[in-house]
């Protein structure tokens, strides 16, 4: 079969209309939340979605980097999808920064360590524990760190994107070899700093609490949602007639990774929960006590059902992993499930008992999903769908694994 490797994705039609409608819904709901609703709850929702969007766009970079350093060939023909994810990074980064900065300066987010008087020994609000952490948890340093994470990681994503486009034009091994180098450096920097990013952005919402697993637990969520989003995009593209070379063996492999890392995410969840529950130390229990309240207990367990049990059962058989429709379903369930996961991470420490599911939550989620889809597809349309000069391209279009 002769493949047309110069074909580009054209961003138009339904995909464009729907993502624009979703963005409008999001903007309207967020504006309504600020003007007529509860701004506090709106900020909390913005944090959930901005964090999710940032993680998802970096998941694309992580996927690329791992493919390069591992000498992997199976996914080469769909690498433009994670590469398109990385084009969302600048937007996601700016939004996350704006949300954190705005939330801090209007005293709507991170109040547990940023409320006035917490570090002043003469204030009635004085909290010695927070005061002890103030060298790390203070506004200027916190905001600088947020910017640094996104900029430093983002630079590598930008370079890698440039190299892959250069490879399209020039061929040869130079870009590929350089990509491996950049990917390796990215993996080291990302691996060492992502836990801090998660401690800052998510864990410090409840600033008294601490857990060493938290960083890797969040990284597992980033990775499994990233895999699901890549699979979902590839399936949708295939269904709309693009990516003719995306085959069931590649789908099977993506499914295996989703299955495996669903279990890995649950493993980190259980590790964290079991150890804290078992040791029963009050300082550490707070996090789970807050989620044991009637407002959250059901969601806390529902999260495990959606993020673990459902995908676990759905992706268990190899027939299901090779079935485009079922894989699509599994990817959507995992993506929605981890939104709930982040929701349960943020809400108890921000809006406490006053949580709910209404236009704030759904509007923000729909808006961000639309924005991500819009920016990602726009990025995708700016380069050919096939990295035709990638040394493993041919290997990946022939990728075949038996269904046993």
């Amino acid at each position: 079969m002769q493949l047309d490797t110069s074909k580009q994705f054209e961003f138009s039609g339904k995909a464009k209309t729907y993502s624009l409608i979703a963005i409008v819904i999001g903007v309207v709901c967020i504006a309504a939340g600020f003007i007529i609703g509860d701004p506090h709850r709106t900020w909390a929702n913005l944090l959930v979605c901005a964090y999710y969007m940032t993680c998802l766009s970096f998941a694309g970079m992580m996927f690329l980097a791992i493919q390069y350093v591992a000498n992997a060939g199976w996914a080469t023909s769909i690498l433009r999808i994670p590469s398109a994810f990385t084009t969302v990074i600048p937007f996601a980064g700016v939004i996350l920064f704006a949300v954190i900065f705005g939330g801090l300066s209007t005293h709507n987010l991170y109040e547990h360590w940023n409320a006035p008087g917490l570090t002043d020994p003469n204030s009635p609000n004085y909290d010695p524990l927070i005061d002890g952490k103030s060298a790390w948890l203070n506004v200027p340093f916190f905001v600088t760190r947020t910017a640094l994470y996104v900029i430093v990681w983002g630079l590598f994503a930008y370079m890698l994107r440039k190299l892959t486009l250069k490879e399209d034009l020039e061929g040869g091994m130079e870009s590929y070899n350089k990509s491996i180098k950049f990917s390796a450096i990215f993996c080291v920097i990302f691996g060492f700093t992502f836990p801090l990013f998660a401690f800052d952005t998510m864990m410090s919402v409840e600033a008294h609490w601490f857990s060493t697993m938290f960083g890797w637990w969040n990284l597992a969520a980033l990775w499994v949602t990233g895999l699901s989003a890549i699979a979902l995009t590839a399936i949708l593209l295939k269904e709309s007639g693009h990516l003719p070379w995306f085959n069931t063996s590649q789908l099977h492999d993506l499914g295996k990774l989703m299955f495996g890392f669903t279990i890995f995410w649950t493993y980190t969840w259980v590790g964290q929960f079991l150890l804290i529950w078992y040791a029963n130390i009050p300082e550490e229990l707070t996090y789970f006590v807050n989620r044991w309240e009637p407002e959250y207990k059901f969601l806390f367990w529902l999260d495990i059902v959606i993020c673990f049990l459902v995908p676990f059962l759905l992706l268990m058989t190899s027939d299901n992993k090779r079935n485009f429709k079922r894989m699509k379903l599994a990817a959507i369930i995992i993506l929605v499930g981890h939104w709930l996961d982040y929701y349960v991470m943020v809400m108890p420490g921000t809006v406490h008992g006053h949580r709910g599911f209404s236009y704030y939550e759904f509007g923000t989620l729909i808006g961000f999903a639309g924005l991500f889809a819009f920016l990602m597809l726009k990025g995708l349309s700016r380069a050919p769908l096939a990295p035709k000069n990638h040394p493993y391209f041919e290997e990946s279009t022939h990728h075949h694994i038996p269904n046993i």
Partner: protein
Amino acid sequence: MHESIIRKPLVTGTPDMHTVTEDVCRPLENTPSKAWWIGFTLAFAGFVLWLVSFGYTAWVGLGAWGLNKTVGWAWDITNFVWWVGIGHAGTLISAVLLLFRQSWRNSINRSAEAMTIFAVICAATYILAHMGRPWLAYWAFPLPNQFGSLWVNFNSPLIWDVFAISTYFSVSCLFWFVGLLPDIATVRDRATGVRKQVYSALSLGWTSSARSWIRFESISLILSGISTPLVLSVHTIVSFDFATSVIPGWHTTIFPPYFVAGAIFSGFAMVQTLLLVARVVLKLENYITLYHIELMNIIILVTGSIVGVAYLTELFIAWYSGVEYEQYAFLNRVSGPYWWAYWIMMTCNVISPQLMWFKKLRTSLVFTFIISIVVNIGMWFERFVIIVTSLHRDYLPSSWAMFTPTVVDVGLYVGSIGLFFTLFLLFIRFLPSVAMAEVKLLLKHSSEEAKIKARKHEHAAHHPVQGDVVIATTATLKKGESNEE
């Protein structure tokens, strides 16, 4: 299957199917070399030392060790965790790499799996020894009995350990033995006399029929699917032995994945130590190539860095937690009386593997050998640091103490290394140490010979090489222009 031309060969030289059989069977069919005898004598002497130390411990009781009322757990559990950890690499290579379809595992999986089994046996000896009355070891199992209230405590991670490790050991043995069947059959077909009878019994009547191979393929995949969660569970539960407690330095949530990463790290180091020697002594350089060694070095680099992230995370969170006990435990680790152990651990586990970034170093045999030993020293110290430095200064300063090992402690440790090598040397003498059948699968696509052929073929076909097209496209583009619209 199409394989990209830039992939490196997994078999060097020009061996054909028969040469593979000859090369692998040679140590089994000839009298052992001098090197083997020297190695075996040393290892066996170590084993005798172990027997004496173990017997002495059983005779006089645990007072023979250096334990005291503050440090009630020291070298015994350190060595136990060290050996269990070493075992992990075998399963990773045989199961996880099989699931990932990494065919470079084919020539190293057999010896790595054997190493796993022997390492788990060594680990098990410490469970027995530190029971004090090893003849009552069966009390660790929930067996129906008439001893009144004697029943295992299902709430204890130690009993989870019993289940995890015994299951892991059984599955590893099964996996290893099933994998051996076709190769044992090959040895059987070449043997005569008593040898033939023994190998015949061991090969379970393997016929090499298509049906046997189909069954073989599916059982391998099923067993690797079972082993993968098992191998994770083993070191996870070993970490629970510490992390479920309320002892600062032990109770930290990152322990499960961090222990697993550390285990793989030390296991690969041990595989390197063994294979670097074995490939030379057994003349297997064409199958266990420099590329294999480089790949394993990369895994050592990756897992070493993961362990490094965990160390730094622990330090950071100890400070961040604001809990004074937590903060002191780590301050004491870094700068207390056992500071040297901490810094040996840091240097050996985090800093030394970083040298693997240099291609020259990670493809150097001598350097790899040194690092593989250094890493295992570091990983021993890691467990020592976690166990002893967390215990020796507990909540009550009046009971602070130091730990000094006795001769029996040292004897048990050195002896267990002897036991390990005794088993390993017997293994390479009596069983094929490279999976012949699986290496033969590589000859057609992934050998050096196949690569050269493929290259010649490509030249002969006069396909326009990618480079030719390049000139045409770049000519129409100005410098700095991109193909983005």
